Structures are given as structure tokens and as C-alpha cells.
């Protein structure tokens, strides 16, 4: 993907869960090389948006379209989206007892590599491949022998998400509140890790409540979501303004604009 080329085009997206409409018309364009932040109060639909893009089966897309590298995203199953280069870093990574983290990572890596027409790695080769990624995120190799996310601290789970991102090398990563549950040191490690994974050909969409992650990962665009819509888009300074003033003024401004 060339810098500046369109990676993700979301047009008029609405979606519901159990018959309740959560997303009420979202428009968003993400180009290669960009960092976007989506901010907003709890319940505004940020996480739903991320899950809909990743293909969570609980959400029903009711209208609108999403193009991922020019292709209709909704023609793809969740696994096809992952293989095509879309990555969701989960807000609450799922625990999978009985599957070691190492075998999970290798299976994910080889599945995606195979689908991209690249060589798979045997266990020894994969171990080598993994070493650099572990260092990048300051992860103790002992953590590979544990079951996926089982008994991990909040910070370990989030680091494990970024480790998966490092391994799968997505073109578009959606990081859903990757900063929540991290202390300041862990936040720095995770943010630095993500920074190192950036390239002109890929893009990041950060779903977050707080400015603090954005100190490390500077967004070109900050979007405010409220009640299932993006109600304001600005530059990185908008995040600082939200941090000091809260969200209410943005909602008020939006309502006034709509009324006019």
C-alpha cells in the first residue's frame, strides 16, 4: 500500500445489536500512513464500531458500506479480514485455557502467512522470529508457555494484543482502548512498540478515552463519537481540548449545528 492511498472508507454505516441501533451513520476515511483517534464518552459506540469492522457476529450491519483497500469489507468473514490485513486489538482480550500462547501465536501467524501466499515457519524458526518481537514489547518468554491470556494482568493482556499485531503485520490496526488498564510504564512500552510497527504503508485507528496514549502516538485526525455518530473531527489539538473541557461542549455544538 502506497502512502496516502485510501485504506478504509466508511460511508453511512449503521449497525445494531439485538435489534437496538448502536451506529447511526458513520463516515470515515483512513489513508495509508495515517493515525486516527476516535474518542468519546462511554456508550458512544466506539467499541461497537471497531467490532463491526472486525466482523463480530453479534452485530448486524443495517446500512452503509465499508471499503477496505477498495474491496467490500462485508463480503469477507472475520478471518478473511484478518488475512487481508485488518487487525483488532481487543479492549477485553479473551482467555483461552488449554491453548498455550506460543502455539496460538504460531497458528495465527502461519494461518495468515499461508493465506498471504508466504512461507509458514516451523516451531524453531518461529521461536527465532518471535525473539525480536518479545524484546520490542519487553515480554518475558515464560509468558509464551502460559495459556492464552489466562491469568494475565490487564497490562499483560494488552501487551499480548500488540505482540499479535507485531506478528500479523496488519495494514490497518484498530486498537480498542489498548491504553486502559496500563500503568504509565506499561503504556510507554506498548505505545513505543506500536510506534515501531508504524510504516508509511499502514495505518492506525486508536479508540481511546484519554489523551495520554496520544502523547506517544500522535494522531493526524481526532474524531469525537457520540450516540453512534462522529460529531466532530479535528487535529491532534482537539484531543487536548477534550482532555481539559470534556465532551459536553462538542455535543452541544453538534446539536446547535443540527438545529440550524
Amino acid at each position: 500500500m502506497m502512502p496516502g492511498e485510501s485504506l478504509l472508507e466508511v460511508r453511512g454505516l449503521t449497525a445494531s445489536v439485538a435489534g437496538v441501533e448502536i451506529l447511526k451513520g458513520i463516515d470515515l476515511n483512513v489513508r495509508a500512513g495515517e493515525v486516527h483517534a476516535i474518542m468519546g464518552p462511554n456508550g458512544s459506540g466506539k467499541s461497537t464500531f471497531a467490532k463491526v469492522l472486525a466482523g463480530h457476529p453479534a452485530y448486524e450491519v443495517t446500512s452503509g458500506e465499508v471499503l477496505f483497500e477498495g474491496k467490500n469489507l462485508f463480503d469477507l468473514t472475520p478471518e478473511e479480514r484478518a488475512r487481508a490485513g485488518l487487525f483488532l486489538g481487543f479492549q477485553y482480550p479473551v482467555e483461552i485455557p488449554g491453548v498455550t500462547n506460543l502455539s496460538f501465536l504460531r497458528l495465527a501467524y502461519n494461518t495468515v502467512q499461508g493465506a498471504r501466499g508466504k512461507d509458514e515457519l516451523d516451531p524453531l524458526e518461529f521461536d527465532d522470529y518471535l525473539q525480536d518481537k518479545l524484546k520490542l514489547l519487553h515480554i518475558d518468554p515464560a509468558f509464551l508457555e502460559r495459556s492464552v491470556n489466562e491469568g494475565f494482568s490487564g497490562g499483560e493482556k494488552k501487551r499480548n494484543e500488540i505482540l499479535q499485531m507485531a506478528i500479523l503485520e496488519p495494514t490497518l490496526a484498530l486498537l480498542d482502548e489498548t491504553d486502559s488498564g496500563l500503568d504509565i510504564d506499561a503504556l510507554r512500552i506498548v505505545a513505543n512498540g506500536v510506534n515501531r510497527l508504524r510504516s508509511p504503508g499502514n495505518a492506525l485507528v486508536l479508540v481511546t478515552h484519554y489523551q495520554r496514549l496520544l502523547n506517544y502516538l500522535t494522531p493526524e485526525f481526532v474524531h469525537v463519537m457520540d450516540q453512534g455518530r462522529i460529531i466532530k473531527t479535528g487535529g491532534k489539538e482537539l484531543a487536548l481540548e477534550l482532555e481539559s473541557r470534556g465532551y459536553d461542549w462538542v455535543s452541544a455544538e453538534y446539536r446547535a449545528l443540527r438545529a440550524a
Partner: protein
Amino acid sequence: MDALKSSYLDNLLYGQGQIPASRLSWLNELRAEALERANALTVPTTGDEDWRFTDLSPLYKTALRPSPDAVEIAASALEPWLISEAGSRLVFVDGAFAPNLSVLQPEDGVAVLPLASALTQHGERVRAHLAQVAPFGADPFCAVNTAWLRDGAAVLTDRNRDIARPIHLLFLSASPGAAVYPRALIVTARGSRCTVVEDFLSSHEAAGFTNGVTEVVVGENASVRHVRLQRESANAFHIAACGVRVARDGRYSSVSVSVGGRISRYNLNVLQGAEGTSFEIDGLALISGRQLADTHTFLDHAHPQGRSRQLHKCIADGAAHAVFNGKILVRPGAQRTDSAQQSRNLLLSDRAHVDTKPQLEIFADDVKCAHGATVGQLDTEQIFYLRSRGMDEPSARNLLTLAFAAEIVERIALPSVVRRLEHHLARRAHNGGKQ
């Protein structure tokens, strides 16, 4: 149907009279007594509490004959089932000892040999335990097995010996339509340790009936690890009883895995014979299609300071039906018993079915007993998580099913067996639950 049931045991016993008499009069008496009991008992129906969920009508409608003598099996046919870690291996084809397929590895401190030989070489020791630990008084299948008793596997350890290499007892059903009667006796002397793998297999896909009895005597401060693999054909009928008696400070651990059989039933009865014993009882049934797998365990805490840990898992796909009944009895005076039982069940299809019944009966006041049962399906969030990392849905379901089974399979702790079982489970899941 009633006439069918009452004559059923007669059919099974047809030909039993032709067993040549033993030189051991006590053995002849034992068989005669078992024959008498078999004639007095009737086969169970779903009207019996212990068989409520397991309808044996398909077995009763299947014409069976005694196993023919000496079926030839090529050694290469056993290749896929061999256990690389094992020392001695005893192979029985349709219940008959197959010396050419067996490996009798001379090893200090243990005798591994056919029961027929043990009867002469270790007569008193065998006599002291045979048919004592798995009594046939109330169990018609056990009575029929004992009435047919001619040979089997014997494992006898000496005092304070640690038998490092596992002993593999392989029971192969080779004749379609035959009824076969595997038998095993494991007696461990004070302070000894051993691992025994009992393996039940079929070399054909037709119906047949395996009616097995195993007896395990754990000596004072002795330790027995007992692995039981039932991987017969999906058309086989398999009913087996295992009686275990554990002496003071003895340890018995059991991992039983059932993947085969059209209808299978395993009765495991473990008796605490003195203070300070430890039982670890783990089980896994993984079935599909129209299979039924029933496990009944009875842990009898009859003395103080007994500890038991039990985890039983069932995974049912297709229209399969899994049954677990886990009875734990804490008798009066069995103070400071510490017992925990878990039954965990996974249903992979809407038509699959599980009946699980923990049954605690406690007659002592200073005890710790916990039990729990869960029945669930694969977690949709876990499936989505795996799919979001590129795995397709069948692979994700397969991986999660294996992970559920792995907790039990890994307790087998023999790498070659664990690997092969995991491979078998993976292939099975890959075929959509078909064998």
C-alpha cells in the same frame, strides 16, 4: 423383549461349559460360582437406577458368538498403537494371549505375564485377589466375564520397587460379532510404584461385544498410575468394570479416555482400604454420531484421611449421548476426608446430550467435600477472537475443543500417547466429528 433379556445371558454363556477344567480347583470353583450368579442375575434395563440413561437394547438385539480361537494378527497392524515409552507389552486378541505380538521385557521388581502363567507361578498371590476386588455378586456382566475366565494380563510388583517403564496391556477385538472377555489383575506390593496402560482397540468396524474386568490392588504406600484408553470401533459394545482397593497411604491415579464404542459403559469402583490414601480420578469421553458413553465411578471413603480429586469431562457432538455418574461415599468414621469432584461437559451440537449426576453421600462430620457440574457450548467470544486472528471457524472450534480435552489428555503424561490422542482428536474434529 423380556424373553430376549432373560435369555441374553444364556446366549453369552453358550459354550462356556467347554472351557477345559483348570488344575486349580479354586479357579474351577470360582468359575462355577460366577456361572451360577450369571444364571441367577438378569441383564439391566433402563428401569434400573444405575442404567437409567443407558439403554442396552441395541446390544441385546445383536447376535453374538464366543470368540473363535487364535485369530492371526500381523505385528505391523499394531504399529499405530504402540507406546514408545513402554517396557513390557501384553497383547490379547479376542481375549487370547498373543505371544508373538507381546514383549515380555524382563525387569527387576515386576512380573508382567499372562494370567494363565501367573496362576501357576504366583498362585497364592493371584488367588488372594482375583475376583475379590471386582466382585461379581451383583453385576451380571462381571459374572459372565468371570465365568469365562481363562486368561488375561497379570502385573505383580515386588516391595519397594519403582517400575520406571509403563506396562502396556493391549486388548484387541479382531472378530466381528464376537463377545470377548478381557481380564487384568494388577497387584502392587508395599512401597512399589508402576504405570499401567490398558488399551482397548478393534481391528474391524463391525459390531462386537467387549466385556472386560480389571482389578487393581494398591499396596501400603504404593502408587499405581492407571491409564485406560477405550478406542474401539464406533459400532462396538463395550462394558467394563474396574475394581480398585487401596491400602494405607497408597495412591491410585486413573486417567480414562473413551472415544470408541456405539455404547460404552465403564464402572470404576475405588475402595479406600485404610487411612491416608489418595485417589486422582480423571476421565474424558469424546463422542459423536450416535455414540453413547457412560462412566459410573464410585469412590468409597471408608477410612479417615482419604483424599480424592476427580475431574470428568464429556464432549458430545452429532446426536451423541454422554453419561456421567460420580458417587462419592464418606462412611461413618471416615473423618478428615478431603474430596473434590468436577464434571465438565461440552456439547458441540444441538442434538448432543449429556446426563451428569454427582452423588455425594456423607456420613462423617469432619470432612471437606466439594463438587460441581457444568454443561456448556463453545464460547462465541473465544471463537470470534480466534477468527479475528485469521483462523477459519471450523479450525477455531476444533482448537477450542482440543483445549477442553487437553486438560485430561495431558494428565496421561506419556508423550507418545498424548501426541497420538491429540492427533486423533484433531483429525476427528476436522472430519466434522465423524470417525
